[in-house]
């Protein structure tokens, strides 16, 4: 052993003992640190913020001063930074690797977008400032609105909706308002079984009865069945295109024509717009309303669950019913925010306001930055590369994984596999958890519902070929293990911060907040 004079060895002995690792006294494993709850480490008289002296005044709190203990622990700034840094390290994220959640479009989130959204001129302005003081912000909304219209070939756009589901709501409200305006109180919305849960939920949320549309064996809407069901009670048909099986609805235009002929409207779930942006305009397919998840196609970050933004593009028939407020460019170049205050007689049929202010400004600045960066040419390339990547995954794995619609033509931006052919007792979940150990986020599991043990893989265009190849390698290895019945796979993940978690227990005895009591009980 080489050793310096101070007694320091400089070359290690070779080892073959990775599994000898003794448990640590702290429970930590080097850089994977266990972190307690703020309620366990903080205290109500510690703070990480200090303030200027409070002037003495006679309180005017209506004799309602809060005197009880609230129970909010504080931490010093250092402890706070550490708490959240440590927690963050227990997450997977796009920044770490491929995040192929089907239907979620987990593409790269450019940092320029974050920087632009934080310019004080955007981040530090109040929604009710006089319009003369927010012309730049209104220009952002207005420009984005126009470009979304250009990209979709539609007539108008509602910028207010705060996410995809909120956009669905906006679209259906427009449809209902349009129908009511012509005195036509239709009550049914048709939704394919493969649709995302928000579609039926939204339809129900605004008072519609939901009925299924059947699918063909090749994974598309059954046109004949649909036509047969159309009638005077049907208000709208909700279609996802490309659909959640990853296929383009070839008959979209025919469907739209049939729906329109039956006096109903076509709502398109635009969550999968990434597959066609710059190559196909939904307006050309007869769509009446479609939400666009800015947090998918236009790369605003998902943030662990939100926020998103779901502008809805509208056909000429629906545009007059859209929500307040909206922006309009005047002849003199100024941009007006049209709201209750100044709408006058301009938009008499608007269904009204659907959220407190003007939508998700912070997402608009990011999405506009994204569009400017890509341009018309880049966006078209986005769709092409997204589709190319998905087909590459599909065709590279269909020999080891069942691709139920592999014969239905090329897929669009996502590749769908099923659990068919795995050894007895092995499930999609095992493959998913195995991917975790391999350093990937799993694909969407068990959705769409039309396929047993569905695995929906959406790589997006921002993945390199090298990243895809590594992912394919990992998935192939897992498929082989699951087919061979490798029991070790059922224990995966082994290397993640936690082993598989018990969801049944969580739902059976819900513990939704921390309490001193729960702690005391646990200690017993």
């Amino acid at each position, binding site marked *: 052993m080489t050793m310096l004079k101070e007694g320091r060895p400089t070359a290690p002995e070779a080892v073959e003992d990775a599994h000898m690792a003794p448990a640590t006294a702290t429970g930590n494993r080097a850089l994977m640190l266990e972190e307690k709850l703020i309620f366990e480490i903080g205290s109500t008289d510690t703070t990480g913020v200090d303030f200027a002296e409070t002037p003495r005044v006679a309180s005017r709190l209506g004799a309602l001063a809060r005197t009880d203990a609230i129970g909010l622990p504080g931490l010093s700034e250092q402890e706070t930074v550490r708490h959240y840094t440590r927690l963050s390290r227990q997450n997977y994220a796009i920044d770490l690797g491929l995040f192929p959640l089907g239907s979620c479009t987990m593409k790269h989130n450019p940092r320029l977008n974050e920087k632009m959204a934080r310019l004080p001129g955007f981040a530090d302005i109040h929604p009710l400032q006089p319009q003369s003081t927010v012309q730049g912000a209104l220009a952002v909304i207005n420009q984005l609105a126009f470009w979304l219209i250009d990209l979709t070939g539609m007539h108008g756009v509602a910028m207010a909706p705060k996410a995809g589901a909120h956009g669905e709501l906006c679209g259906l409200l427009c449809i209902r308002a349009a129908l009511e305006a012509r005195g036509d109180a239709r009550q049914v919305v048709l939704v394919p079984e493969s649709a995302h849960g928000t579609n039926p939920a939204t339809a129900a949320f605004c008072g519609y009865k939901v009925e299924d549309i059947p699918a063909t064996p090749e994974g598309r809407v059954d046109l004949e069945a649909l036509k047969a069901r159309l009638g005077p009670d049907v208000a709208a048909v909700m279609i996802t295109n490309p659909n959640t099986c990853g296929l383009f609805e070839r008959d979209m235009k025919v469907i739209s024509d049939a729906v329109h002929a039956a006096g109903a409207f076509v709502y398109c779930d635009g969550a999968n717009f990434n597959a066609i942006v710059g190559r196909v305009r939904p307006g050309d397919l007869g769509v009446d309303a479609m939400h666009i998840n800015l947090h998918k196609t236009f790369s605003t970050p998902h943030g662990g669950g939100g926020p998103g933004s779901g502008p809805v593009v509208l056909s000429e028939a629906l545009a007059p019913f859209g929500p307040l407020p909206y922006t309009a460019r005047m002849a003199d170049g100024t941009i007006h925010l049209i709201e209750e205050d100044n709408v006058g007689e301009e938009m008499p049929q608007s269904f009204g306001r659907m959220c407190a*202010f003007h939508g998700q400004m912070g997402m608009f600045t990011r999405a506009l930055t994204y569009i400017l960066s890509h341009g018309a040419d880049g966006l078209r390339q986005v769709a092409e590369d997204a589709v190319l990547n998905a087909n590459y995954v599909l065709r590279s794995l269909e020999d080891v994984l069942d691709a139920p619609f592999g014969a239905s033509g090329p897929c669009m931006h996502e590749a769908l596999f099923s659990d068919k052919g795995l050894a007895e007792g092995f499930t999609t979940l095992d493959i998913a958890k195995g991917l975790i150990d391999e350093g990937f986020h799993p694909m969407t599991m068990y959705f769409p519902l039309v396929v047993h043990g569905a695995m929906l893989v959406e790589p997006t265009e921002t993945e390199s070929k090298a990243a895809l190849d590594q992912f394919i390698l990992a998935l192939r290895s897992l498929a082989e293990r699951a087919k061979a019945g490798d029991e070790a796979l059922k224990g995966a993940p082994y290397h993640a911060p936690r082993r598989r978690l018990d969801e049944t227990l969580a739902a059976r005895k819900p513990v939704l907040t921390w309490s001193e009591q729960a702690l005391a009980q646990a200690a017993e």
Partner: protein
Amino acid sequence: MPLFDLKGRGLERNDMRYLPLTDTDRQAMLATIGAASIDDLFVDVPAEARLAGPIAGLPAHASELAVERHMTALARQNLSAGEAPFFLGAGAYRHHVPASVDHLIQRGEFLTAYTPYQPEIAQGTLQVLFEFQTQVARLLGCDVANASMYDGSTACWEAIGMARRITKRGKALLSSGLHPHYVSVAQTMAKFTGDALVHDAPTLDAATDIDVLIAAIDKDTSCVVVQYPDILGRIADLTPLADAAHAAGALLVAVVTEPVALGAIKAPGAMGADIVVGEGQSIGVGLQFGGPYLGLFACKQKYVRQMPGRLCGETVDAAGKRGFVLTLSTREQHIRREKATSNICTNSGLCALAFSIHMTLLGEKGLRELAALNHALACEAADRLARVPGVTLVNDSFFNEFTLVLNKDAREAVRNLADRGVLAGVSLGRLYPKAPEIAGGLIVAVTETTTVEDIEALATALEEELA
């Protein structure tokens, strides 16, 4: 239409900074797929719907430098709150957010993660949500809280819907002190769901409409919705209202648009509110011209299975270690579809994180100090502004926001003051265009970011404007 020449240039496939595939890659991949060209992958698109080239109307792709210049120029066309004496509130408040909050929410592992559907590699987000739910429940004085809604106004509507499901009644009484935008949102939805809403514009009195509401409760009432402090900044004890509602089998829904207030005044839950919703933007999130914001949603334990939105719960892993998962998802759209309690999916996760971090930095001690400072500065401002000739103070109770009556249309005054570089507050004319009788009203908010110089600037400008 772009303000600045973006100096975009034509398509060169390999030089888009966000797209990693090279043409060589593309060829190799097409070969694996067995397709001759990219176009072959779009065969299922009807020929007439395939666009031949880039969409017209949009510029070509532009460098980061050019885009940054363009966006910066747009940003400079706005007068940001930090550049002027600033007094706007009415549902969105300017507070100082510590630098560490923004640093932490930009950690890629938080920013670029999805909803925590794979809990083994999402414990970071999940533990934060569990902590957030606990913080919110405690702040609002409730048993449980969810993992966030879009914003206060949509949370408010969800609460009305939830009250309908619980009480099986369809009439909601909305206080005249409820934010008019929240009222509008509820009215929009009610048109379609068939709920009946009762509502008037506020009057410029020192007292709230609690007594009016109590008198209006009847056996068809699903809930009473009351804002606390209300749109004019007034604070009233909600206990009598809760009692009256409960006596009639109705629920009390309380709405808090300024959560910092709850560091100084009683929690609505503690006064008997069954559901407390709120706008969390004040803590950690910032102004952002109205969004993204943060809907807070909390209620009594017994109603938990009627709640909308995601919930995070505690559990254990296969090795027995504590961990967290999304739970009770049988309430949610992805499991229950048309029978879900709400259609919400994407929520305000990152804003919830920001809220939770800021709240952790504050702690109870910091929150109380912050609230005390807001209140004290607001008291000083109210006294100073009430001395301006032509100005009357409406409130005798308030937290950090109060309403003045000017001797002229406040909308005009606000616009004129903006031209002089003072952002004076929110006029009632803007909020209630159809209520000319209260058009003199001006809502003024004061926070820890307000300086004595700001207050003096507003007073002086008002003096000149009203003279």
